[in-house]
């Protein structure tokens, strides 16, 4: 038996007593009882849904406000404008104003599958400090 096989055998043995002592029926009853006590009321459920929707709306508004703050618009929006009425230069202006400057990150994507075992070990050692 190799050392690894011996360790695996020990690991399987460890916890056997815990498994044998376990009162499965009592555990199952306890789980169900807790789930019943924990059952949220309808109003709590709806509150959760409402909170989630509010979070989505807030995030959308925040993103919209941020995007808007990045735009520089030169012409006047007070009067409604049909795009078909705009000249080429004015159309260019509209298109430019819609472009938002954002930093572009170049990501060198390296999957862990690309690394060999030694590189993986080195990486893990680095991460673990």
């Amino acid at each position: 038996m190799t050392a690894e096989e011996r360790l695996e055998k020990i690991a399987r043995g460890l916890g056997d007593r815990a498994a044998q002592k376990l009162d499965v029926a009592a555990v199952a009853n306890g789980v169900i009882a807790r789930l019943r006590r924990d059952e949220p009321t309808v109003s709590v459920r709806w509150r959760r849904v409402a909170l989630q929707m509010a979070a989505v709306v807030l995030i959308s508004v925040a993103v919209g406000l941020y995007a808007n703050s990045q735009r520089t618009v030169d012409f006047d929006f007070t009067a409604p404008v049909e795009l078909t009425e705009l000249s080429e230069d004015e159309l260019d202006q509209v298109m430019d104003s819609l472009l938002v400057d954002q930093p572009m990150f170049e990501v060198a994507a390296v999957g862990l599958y690309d690394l060999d075992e030694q590189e993986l070990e080195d990486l893990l050692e680095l991460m673990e400090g």
Partner: protein
Amino acid sequence: MAAIPLTEPTSDAELIESWKLGDETAATELVHRHAEAVARYLGAAGAGEDVDDLVQEAFFRAFRKIDTFKGEAQFRTWVIRIASNALKDQRRRIRGRVVLSIEDGGQLADGQGRPDEVLDARETERRVAAGIEELPAMQRDVFLLRAQHAVSYEDIAAVLGTTPGAARVHYHQAVKRLKELL
């Protein structure tokens, strides 16, 4: 010719869908199927006398957030992962507590063989048990899932949020550390 059962046993996936519709007997059946495996993991991970409570906690958490289980691994493996987190939470609350249970020596040192051999085997088990408990959490979980439950590296990676390659490395690192205790 082997007898063909009249009905096929219900799969974990079917039980999970039933539970989502509120069927408590489905939840109970899932506990009966997998509780011992979860207890086995917790016993080896050093949960000591808290195994029963932690098994219950693990299943409670699992059923509460059953919608997050996407079938990326076996249900049992997923619950063991939840049990590992429950154990970590418990240790954070009770710092410095010695949880190694000498009684969880397992089946190896069961009195068969010469007394000195039995003592040696028990001492080795004790050292390995302590070593497992001291492993970094990821290494411990990978090692126990693999050694106790023969979970594939793909499934291990899916539940532990890593990659199969990294899981393999964690396993070998755990074995390397524990080998020194033999």
